[in-house]
């Protein structure tokens, strides 16, 4: 066999000089070594996903029905059920509990597969996983009991943040050890992203903890730093992990290498360069120096480069394999996620300009946008990854194709309906708030027209918010279906399958998803 060039190995996750039998044996051993840590991360992330979805439905309902769940039997009115605590509890549960925990699990597996070494120092990972969950638990409890710091995306009390940071530091140490022991000559695209994410997140998190909570800086600089962090959590932590997953799983399931090396490089470096500057666009027209906002708007516009590059690269890799979406659960979720990434990013770019931001900022439109990113892109990507990885850890295929279908359709339809409701409601709210959409058009007697009163604007959002709650319930049904399948799989229920569980009757190429692939 000819030696593998670095470029080739960056594109093809299967580029090595092993015989198929050797490769299978190597992978089986690696997957076995991932079993305990990955199951710790995936299992606990499932718990937070369920809790986070319930908190989401409660918060969403409270927005249109404020008397919903304000008191407990015997206790009467309690603070822990108020909207202003449930909402951050939801955000922190899904961001740190579900998404980050699932991401760490995927990271462990991808690292082991791509470094082509068995997981060493499992105890570090298990300790990190336990600490991470402890941190999320303490943090969520702190928020509900009224010890929130009040800083968006960083509400968890500092004690919880300290536990989370320690856990993450352990993960980074483990990752460095893995990188140091990797088999030579093989840095696949996904590893660039993972390497970046594992370096960027602790810096971000440590820096804001100091500058916003331990030794807070003065005044509105806090706003700039706050959004530098919150935007980069998406851009430099979740996005790289999501893209690393897509870059690995699309070639795996389709059996083809990534389309272009140069597009991969361009996509990665332009993301690293531009995304990190985006945060300032959360303060358009706000009380911060105009240059910060301008720089962030320019960087946001430049995001077109990484987004389009990655979209083209993924699309051309998928080309000719779209029929697999009918059968492969992994591919269906991953491609859905990858397409949502493009949508989320283009939407984000369109919201960054001064004119458009004036309308969409401070409205439900922004909330919708963050759900395109965190739900339709990242969460769906993690579902796809779990569909691929779990059978390899447990040695048992997914028990029910029907539950997978319910999971997909409920989450996809629910997610899309939610985005439409929040976008539609947000645009209406925004146009009315800035007096572009007027109650009465200008006349000669009344040259500036009559704007809507605040209460009228609020009333206008309520039907949209009802739709959003309904979509949340649909999503929850999807999550329950996934949860049932997950538990049945751990219990090794259902028939013993030798080939992967596929959707639909005709399985076009089951061997590509066989357990040892």
């Amino acid at each position: 066999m000819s030696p593998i060039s670095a470029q080739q190995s960056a594109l093809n996750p299967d580029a090595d000089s092993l015989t198929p039998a050797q490769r299978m044996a190597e992978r089986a051993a690696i997957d076995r070594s991932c079993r305990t840590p990955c199951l710790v991360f995936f299992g606990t992330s499932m718990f937070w996903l369920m809790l986070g979805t319930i908190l989401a439905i409660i918060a969403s309902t409270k927005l249109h029905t404020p008397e919903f769940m304000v008191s407990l039997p015997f206790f009467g009115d309690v603070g822990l059920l108020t909207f202003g605590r449930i909402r951050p509890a939801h955000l922190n549960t899904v961001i740190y509990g579900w998404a980050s925990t699932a991401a760490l699990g995927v990271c462990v597996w991808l690292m082991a597969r791509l470094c082509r070494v068995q997981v060493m120092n499992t105890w570090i990972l298990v300790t990190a996983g336990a600490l991470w969950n402890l941190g999320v638990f303490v943090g969520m409890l702190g928020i509900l009991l009224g010890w929130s710091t009040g800083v968006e995306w960083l509400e968890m009390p500092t004690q919880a943040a300290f536990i989370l940071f320690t856990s993450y530091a352990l993960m980074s140490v483990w990752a460095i050890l893995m990188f140091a022991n990797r088999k030579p000559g093989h840095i696949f695209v996904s590893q660039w992203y993972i390497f970046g994410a594992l370096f960027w997140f602790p810096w971000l998190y440590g820096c804001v903890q100091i500058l916003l909570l331990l030794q807070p800086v003065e005044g509105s600089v806090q706003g700039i730093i706050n959004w530098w962090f919150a935007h980069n959590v998406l851009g430099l932590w979740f996005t790289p992990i999501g893209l690393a997953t897509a870059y690995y799983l699309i070639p795996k399931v389709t059996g083809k290498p990534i389309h272009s090396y140069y597009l991969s490089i361009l996509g990665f470096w332009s993301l690293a360069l531009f995304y990190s500057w985006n945060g300032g666009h959360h303060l358009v027209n706000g009380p911060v120096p105009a240059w910060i906002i301008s720089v962030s708007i320019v960087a946001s516009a430049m995001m077109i480069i990484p987004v389009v590059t990655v979209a083209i690269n993924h699309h051309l890799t998928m080309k000719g394999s779209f029929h697999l979406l009918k059968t492969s659960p992994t591919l269906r979720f991953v491609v859905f996620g990858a397409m949502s990434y493009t949508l989320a990013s283009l939407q984000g770019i369109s919201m960054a300009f001064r004119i458009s931001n004036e309308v969409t900022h401070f409205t439900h439109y922004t909330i919708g946008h963050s759900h395109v990113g965190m739900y339709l892109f990242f969460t769906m990507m993690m579902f796809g990854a779990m569909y691929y990885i779990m059978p390899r850890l447990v040695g048992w295929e997914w028990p029910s194709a029907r539950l997978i279908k319910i999971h997909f359709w409920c989450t996809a339809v629910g997610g899309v309906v939610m985005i439409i409701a929040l976008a539609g409601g947000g645009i209406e709210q925004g146009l009315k708030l800035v007096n572009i959409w007027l109650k009465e058009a200008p006349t000669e007697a009344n040259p500036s027209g009559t704007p809507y009163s605040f209460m009228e604007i609020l009333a206008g959002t309520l039907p949209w918010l009802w739709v959003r709650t309904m979509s949340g319930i649909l999503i929850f049904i999807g999550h329950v279906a996934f949860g049932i399948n997950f538990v049945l799989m751990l219990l090794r229920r259902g028939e013993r399958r030798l080939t992967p569980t596929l959707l639909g009757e005709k399985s076009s190429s089951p061997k590509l998803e066989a357990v040892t692939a």
Partner: protein
Amino acid sequence: MNKLSTLFVGIFITFVSAWLGLVVIPYIQLGGLKPEKDEITGALMPPALSGSAQRGRLVYAANGCVYCHSQQVRGSARRLPEGEVPPDIARGWGARRTFPRDYLGERPHFLGTMRTGPDLANVGLRYTADWQHRHLYAPAAISRGSTMPPFRYLYKKQRIVGAGTPDALDFSLIPGVEPPEEGYEIVPTEQARDLVAYLLALRRSSYDLPEAAE
């Protein structure tokens, strides 16, 4: 890219550039900002918060007011017709836009990202303490159509002693809400008093800043 060192240097440099730009330089530019001193009265602008209002800021944080209320009066990026003011000012949320100096001493900041409810940058100029207490206790009764959650857990019922507590809720001004039984009154807890002290201190349009003169 098959060398870890190249990868690392690139990842480091791209990130540090943005870190310098969005964290370090803004800090250098604004970190030394001081309150403005009124030449005649010697009063500080923005004024420092009282102890109760400072504690109220923590109540505001703990109960997540920031998720529905911003505290910034924005300018407008649109070219507005002659004589027209930016929408935030037209809505009565402040007489001028807010500036970085308006936020000195605020830890944490409550710039906010959402306006499910109105902006609060100047709410202290709009309502009295009694109104705030009634509104926090029963928002929908005080402002019709409001979806603000009731903060009844910040109030307590107690037996009336003597002439009663001065800031007990006046139920004749809260339409449709059942008053407590005879001999009892609903009074704000310390937390509610602190929160209202904080809300009343939000009056950024009541002082002038040199940068507002532009």
